[in-house]
């Protein structure tokens, strides 16, 4: 039995092979038991709660099967941490260009990052998990083990099921392993920072850089304690030179500027700004032209913002001492129609708002049809996802 007498979960399962994991899922499905898939457990609170779900962990799947340095690809189990893959790829001067926050002990796994579609500042240049995953192995609730895509970076054979599972929070089935595209590490990096407390100036400076004929690795904004910044990171053989040029241009706009060639901490801090242990984090899927309005709203709400200026993706942290539920709604009104999804949040906030923004009714119907085809038993994290999927 997987449940005790009160219907709550006994110990999480940690199958040691893809076959065992698929079997565990189908066994739960036969028993009508809801399941949740977990990796490093760094983002388990995201989404709507799934009470009483059996937790099936990918932590028993921890092999880096292939690192094809010459082909810039790797094939890894879902339970491999990004930190582990980073070390492996780094030994060949390569990286997986995904840099979301990894949790306090760097526990975030590939499976979890892909399942939540989490991303970091490198997304500006390299895209997100949906762009970097070239193949996937999945387990469905009827015990099917299937692979999709391949392990070459260019491939259009068959449907792109990997994209369907990326960001699906395990509601279609479990991600057991991924093939990913790697990129060369930049020999040098340098960041131009421009500071101002004027949201309009931050917005126009970021827009200028986003549209400039320069190749940026990352382009972020930040707003905290009534002060803002634009951060433009360059990578390459000689990153300092274009960074100085960018800083010069920001200075002409009236921002206070600096150039950092030892810029690791600056970007750690941007990533860290996407999470909060006590506050409420809202991810805004916006547009780059919304930056001034977003920063003004953040100022009013006493909130912190970090985000990708050129992509229109922002993480807004509402402070724990505020009425965060009301803050979420204010933010949604100010950013409409841009979807605002609550990620980290205290229980009471989570209970008071819809953490998701539901899509159009017709689109939701189609999503439900997809869910029903992949998880006909309806046991993969039921109710966790958008619109109660």
């Amino acid at each position, binding site marked *: 039995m997987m449940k005790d007498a009160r219907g709550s979960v006994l110990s999480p399962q940690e199958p040691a092979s893809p076959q065992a994991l698929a079997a565990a899922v189908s066994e739960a499905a036969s028993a009508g038991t*809801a399941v949740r898939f977990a990796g490093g457990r760094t983002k388990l609170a995201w989404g709507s709660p799934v009470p009483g779900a059996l937790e099936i962990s990918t932590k028993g799947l921890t092999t880096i099967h292939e690192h094809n340095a010459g082909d810039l690809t790797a094939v890894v189990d879902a339970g491999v941490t990004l930190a582990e893959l980073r070390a492996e790829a780094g030994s060949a001067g390569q990286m997986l260009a995904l840099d979301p926050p990894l949790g306090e002990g760097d526990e975030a796994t590939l499976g979890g990052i892909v399942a939540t579609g989490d991303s970091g500042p490198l997304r500006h240049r390299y895209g997100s998990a949906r762009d970097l995953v070239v193949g996937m192995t999945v387990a469905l609730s009827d015990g099917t083990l299937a692979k999709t895509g391949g392990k*070459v970076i260019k*491939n259009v054979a068959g449907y792109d099921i990997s994209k369907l599972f990326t960001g699906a929070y395990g509601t279609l089935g479990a991600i057991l392993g991924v093939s990913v595209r790697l990129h060369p590490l930049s020999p040098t990096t340098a960041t131009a920072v421009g500071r101002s407390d004027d949201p309009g100036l931050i917005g126009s400076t970021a827009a200028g850089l986003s549209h400039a004929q320069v190749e940026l690795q990352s382009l972020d904004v930040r707003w905290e304690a009534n002060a803002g910044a634009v951060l433009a990171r360059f990578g*390459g053989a*000689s990153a300092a030179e274009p960074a100085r040029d960018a800083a010069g241009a920001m200075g002409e706009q009236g921002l206070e500027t600096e150039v950092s060639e030892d810029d690791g901490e600056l970007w750690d801090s941007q990533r860290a700004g996407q999470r909060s242990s006590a506050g409420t984090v809202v991810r805004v899927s916006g*547009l780059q032209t919304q930056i001034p309005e977003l920063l003004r709203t953040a100022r009013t709400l006493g909130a912190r913002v970090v985000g990708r200026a050129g992509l*229109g993706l922002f993480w807004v942290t509402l402070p724990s001492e505020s009425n965060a539920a009301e803050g979420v709604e204010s933010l949604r009104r100010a950013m409409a129609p841009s979807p605002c999804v609550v990620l980290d949040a205290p229980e009471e906030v989570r209970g008071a708002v*819809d953490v998701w923004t539901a899509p159009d009714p017709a689109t939701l119907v189609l999503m439900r049809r997809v869910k029903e085809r992949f998880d006909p038993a309806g046991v993969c994290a039921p109710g966790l996802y958008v619109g109660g999927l």
Partner: protein
Amino acid sequence: MSSDIAGLAADLRSICGDEHVLTHRHQLRTYESDGLLQYAAMPGVVALPADGAEVQRVVRACHEAGVAFVARGSGSGLSGGAMPVEGGCVIALSRLRRILEVDLDNQRVTVEPGVTNIAVSDAVGPGHFYPPDPSSQIVCSIGGNVAENSGGAHCFKYGFTTNYVTGLEVVLPDGELVRLGAKHLDTPGYDLVGAFVGSEGTLGVATSITVRVVPSPQATRTLVAFFDSTSEAGSVVSAVVAEGIVAGAMEMMDNLSIRAAEGATKAGYPQDAGAALVIELDGSESECAARFDQVVALCEEGGAWKVRVASDEAERALIWKTRKAAFAAMGRIAPNYYVQDSVIPRTKMAAVLEQIEELALEYDLKVANVFHAGDGNLHPLVCYDGSKEGEPERAEELAGLIVKACVDAGGSITGEHGVGVDKKRYMPQMFGDDDLATFQRLRCAFDPAGLANPGKVMPTPRLCGEVPGPYREHPLEAAGLAERM
């Protein structure tokens, strides 16, 4: 014309107008193939709707009549993906040519599906551009690019259509209109844009497409280097990658393709070269300059006996013209050819090319190789003479063995042309029954009646089982332990 089709044609005329519905045999013949002329089927009716609303009504009419339909853009595809269903309906999207919105501030362009690929870059140039650039970009449509997830010469660095489409309006095969994605990234819910792009017209018809455009590179440097052999040129490609250089494009031609292309363009390529390697770098002025010198040195160290650097835009254009002429120029080598689109891990290039050469000898046929070397996407052109007894069959068999060699090396049956009708028989080489059945789940979610471009992609026809019914109450809900919002 069957009575079903006659009834449907009458409905379509009331939707699109008489002049935009074709039923005469001589008119229909234009539509019997796409760019892959080996495959043909005669449609029963062709409708040319004027806009998205008409497309929706046309699809609904097909659905009500139970008639299969195939959406068609410019018809330049190379896998038979837009080949009609015999006696079915073709929905030609060539009248949907409006650019609906250019929102340069947010780097988005929204277009109708019949807009050509090049028109998107033209709408935002010269400051910005739309990176996916199939060789046919002057004629091919964005709708077709979405169906095939088209790539191009620059996709090693910039990615494919799927990396640039952020939103779609799609008419589902039952005539329902849905919005997938938006201008925004990461819209909540399943990535149905990602699932739709590359689905080869089997999930519905896109009527509006929103794509991301990016700033044009500040500088572009292009060279072509000549080697004795493709293996030497291949080693240089590996050396460039090993240096951490992400080239905008790396394209290779073997001796046969060089001779064919040179005959067509007179670009001055040495006809005795074993391989020509085109390398293009783009990016910031300083980065480009530093890296370009490195690339020239790597070519020379790697055995290039001649390196031609484009000194101006005209010379760059000539280098590309010669590369892009290779397919069309094959007529100079043989009356007919099969083009394959297999992908291999780049490090297996020398071994696979050697295998192809051995197979060509064994089959006594010529195989020319033109390929995107950066991402290992080979385009072996199997040359044959269709008028010679047994030669087409021999060529087809050889083409199949080349595909197998690529899959065995860890690659794919298709990198950018799509599966269509041409490569569906190879699908089982890459995917097992469970994998194919999993693909079918997506198909059934979108098109349970199987009316959208049936007979493509999947190796054997499959029906969708019963829809599992309305969403059932979960035991946890029944027990009051969980609820859906």
